């Protein structure tokens, strides 16, 4: 294989899919990019890397880590080499996500209303009722247009043969979309002209599509509905995203203390008195959203909001109670849901998942623990996870004890070798593991998926954990036009 000079030190592993290189050489989608960076010296690449960091810092695209009463500004690590997805691959992803979301939304409506899927024996009732994110408060609540998951982030990975699998569904308050937008804007700065030369599909329409859906969800009797974005506040690690989205959509960014419920209607406190709110895009989790119904010690939410919602006086996006559909144990049943509700074969496959409340599964997993990833069903961010081939004997025993105490709280999956993608690290291109989170918007007019998403990358060599809280970073994600 005749490789360009810049790739001479790029060593990929034989047992995994690399986004850039195949056995035949550089993949078609990457050829232009390789040609461009080949012309650059390592000093030039390093200065681009430096420029990207400075731009993130100067533009305040940071999160604050507070220690000793002092805030330290950090940037979410960004790798300058884009991740490229061919158009044909994207078509599969898009139709797969569309299919999956349709099924998951019907599931949510079903599980909070007639529960046909339980009655027909496809999903065990015990699985649903033991899920801490199943909200009894949502039973028989009708949501506008029967849409529950208006904004979703579906995490995808690639297996050895390049096929995409769904790793998890994020149907509650998925974050990362602002990094999709900012990563693109930084790439245009550090690689001028490269995006138009490569015919890359734009991502900038995301806020417009989101606002269109939010407005469409308001009560039709209002000609000029008020839409707000509810944030937990400036100390939340995703605050940058909340303020960016509010600014790009031109809507008010509110905190719980800015809202008040009177006579089951929601108002915001303005300098001109109370103003009625019609749609709330909330970035506050269910349990904190209304202290009168959920956690009484929460000051992030709005007292009385649940009843205003239940009476249909305000639309909350995403709906409450979605956690039951993205529970990691329920995830295993999504392919069945697709067949049951849509009478279709799943386009995107699931990673094989073992429900550890089933004794046979438990025995099998305990016998093969070093080849398994064990996850808590309701944790995210890379927390509550054990990767078998990296774990010590003691860690495995601790997990076994925890699983035996509460088996419903865990699932196991075989270790999947995430695909690798080139990253510019320490002055050379090195393969690092990546996943992909495309963002889907479900509105009354259908499902829109912006061509791209957030590619998360495990920056540590050999690591499979891409979460930002565990040392992960991100890349710009290009979807090429035909």
């Amino acid at each position, binding site marked *: 294989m005749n490789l360009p000079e810049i790739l001479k030190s790029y060593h990929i592993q034989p047992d995994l899919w690399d986004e850039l290189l195949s056995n035949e050489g550089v993949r078609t989608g990457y050829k232009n990019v390789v040609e461009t960076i080949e012309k650059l010296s390592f000093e030039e690449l390093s200065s681009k890397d430096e420029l990207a960091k400075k731009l993130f*810092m100067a533009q305040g695209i940071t999160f604050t880590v507070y220690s000793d009463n002092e805030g330290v500004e950090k940037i979410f690590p960004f790798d300058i080499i884009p991740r490229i997805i061919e158009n044909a691959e994207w078509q599969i992803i898009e139709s797969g996500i569309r299919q999956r979301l349709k099924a998951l939304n019907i599931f949510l409506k079903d599980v909070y209303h007639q529960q046909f899927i339980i009655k027909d024996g496809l999903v065990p009732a015990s699985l649903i009722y033991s899920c801490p994110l199943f909200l009894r408060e949502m039973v028989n609540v009708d949501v506008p247009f029967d849409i529950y998951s208006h904004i979703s982030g579906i995490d995808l990975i690639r297996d050895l043969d390049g096929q995409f699998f769904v790793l998890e569904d994020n149907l509650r308050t998925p974050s990362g979309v602002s990094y999709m937008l900012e990563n693109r804007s930084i790439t245009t700065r550090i690689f001028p002209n490269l995006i138009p030369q490569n015919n890359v599909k734009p991502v900038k329409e995301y806020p417009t599509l989101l606002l269109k859906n939010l407005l469409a969800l308001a009560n039709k009797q209002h000609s000029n509905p008020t839409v707000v974005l509810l944030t937990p506040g400036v100390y939340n690690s995703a605050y940058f995203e909340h303020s960016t989205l509010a600014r790009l959509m031109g809507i008010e960014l*509110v905190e719980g203390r800015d809202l008040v419920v009177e006579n089951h209607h929601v108002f915001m406190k303005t*300098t*001109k008195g109370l103003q009625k709110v019609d749609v709330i895009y909330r970035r506050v989790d269910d349990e904190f959203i209304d202290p009168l119904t959920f956690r009484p010690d929460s000051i992030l939410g709005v007292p009385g909001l649940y009843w205003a919602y239940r009476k249909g006086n305000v639309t909350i996006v995403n709906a409450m109670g979605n956690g039951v559909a993205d529970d990691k144990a329920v995830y295993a049943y999504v392919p069945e849901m697709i067949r049951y509700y849509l009478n279709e074969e799943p386009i995107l496959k699931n990673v094989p998942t073992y429900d550890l409340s089933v004794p046979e599964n438990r025995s099998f997993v305990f016998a093969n623990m070093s080849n398994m990833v064990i996850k808590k069903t309701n944790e995210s961010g890379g927390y509550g996870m054990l990767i078998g081939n990296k774990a010590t004997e003691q860690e495995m025993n601790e997990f076994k004890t925890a699983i035996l105490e509460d088996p419903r709280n865990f699932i196991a999956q075989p270790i999947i070798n995430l695909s690798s993608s080139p990253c510019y690290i320490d002055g050379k291109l090195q393969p690092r593991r990546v996943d992909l989170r495309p963002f889907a918007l479900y509105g009354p007019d259908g499902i829109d998926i912006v061509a791209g998403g957030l590619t998360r990358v495990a920056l540590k060599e050999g690591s499979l954990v891409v979460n930002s809280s565990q040392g992960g970073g991100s890349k710009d994600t290009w979807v090429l036009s035909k």
Partner: protein
Amino acid sequence: MLSRVAESVFWMARYMERTNGLLRVLRTNYVASQDEMKKYNWTTVLETFGCLSDSDIGKIQNDSRLVLKRVMLDKDNESSLINNITRARENAKSIQDNITKEMWHHLNSYYHLIRDPYISEMILNEDPITAMDALIKHSLFLYGTIEITMPRGEANNFLNLGRFLERAIITMEATEIMLKEINYEINLESSIPPLRYLLYSLSGYEAYLRNSKGVAEASSIMNQIIFDENFAHSVMYCITHINRYFRRMKTASTSESFEKVEFNIGKALNNLKYVNIDLSQGSNIHQLLITTRTDFYQIAQSLSTNYFGY
């Protein structure tokens, strides 16, 4: 506009203006300290901006670098420059959707500048004027950015209310510092240099020279600082602009709130406009500053109750 957002805009502007004013006061005092034959005494500056006990002031009052460290860089000092900038940024961060992106970027880079090791090195070991000039320049860029990019809506009105309210307070504080240092005896020959430094710190020295044909006279200096409607740092200029920007908010207010704040602004404006005062007496000026400052605090209080109360 959300009440919380209005309050954050108002306070962001106050912290920005306070930063700018404090920098100018420190710069002038530092220049003065290098021009003295005897050890320069920073007591009044420390009393106003140092948040220190008398005994602690005594320990550093003659050491310019320690004073600058305390007033500019010390995070334990509530009134320090670094805390002012941090708070301005914190307020801006919580209202990013109501200010322009350019303004946020600029304020954010101001925050990074004050934390830059180069700035502290200049202040602590090299030439503090270089650091102060870099910071003042950044402050001016920020005002330019606001002027050019901010829409003339409600946020801009609250921003200007905060800005002019704070500017008037800083003018009065700087004047009070100077009066105290000369023991309120403004007509002595020895009082002229401090009065001149006061004009420097309020960016008014050139304007004074043009108007007075080079003759330094205490009462005309005081007249410019308090009553000159064309001097951007005078108390009169500030209250006139507070009145102007507040009137623009009539349609965006409830009539009850508007009337209450309007009363306080009108009171402050008239108290200043129709005062009969002999400006050649330091004690008269001291008394006027106390009354006027109370009027300004009442405006702030009234805004807080009627517009920010949530």
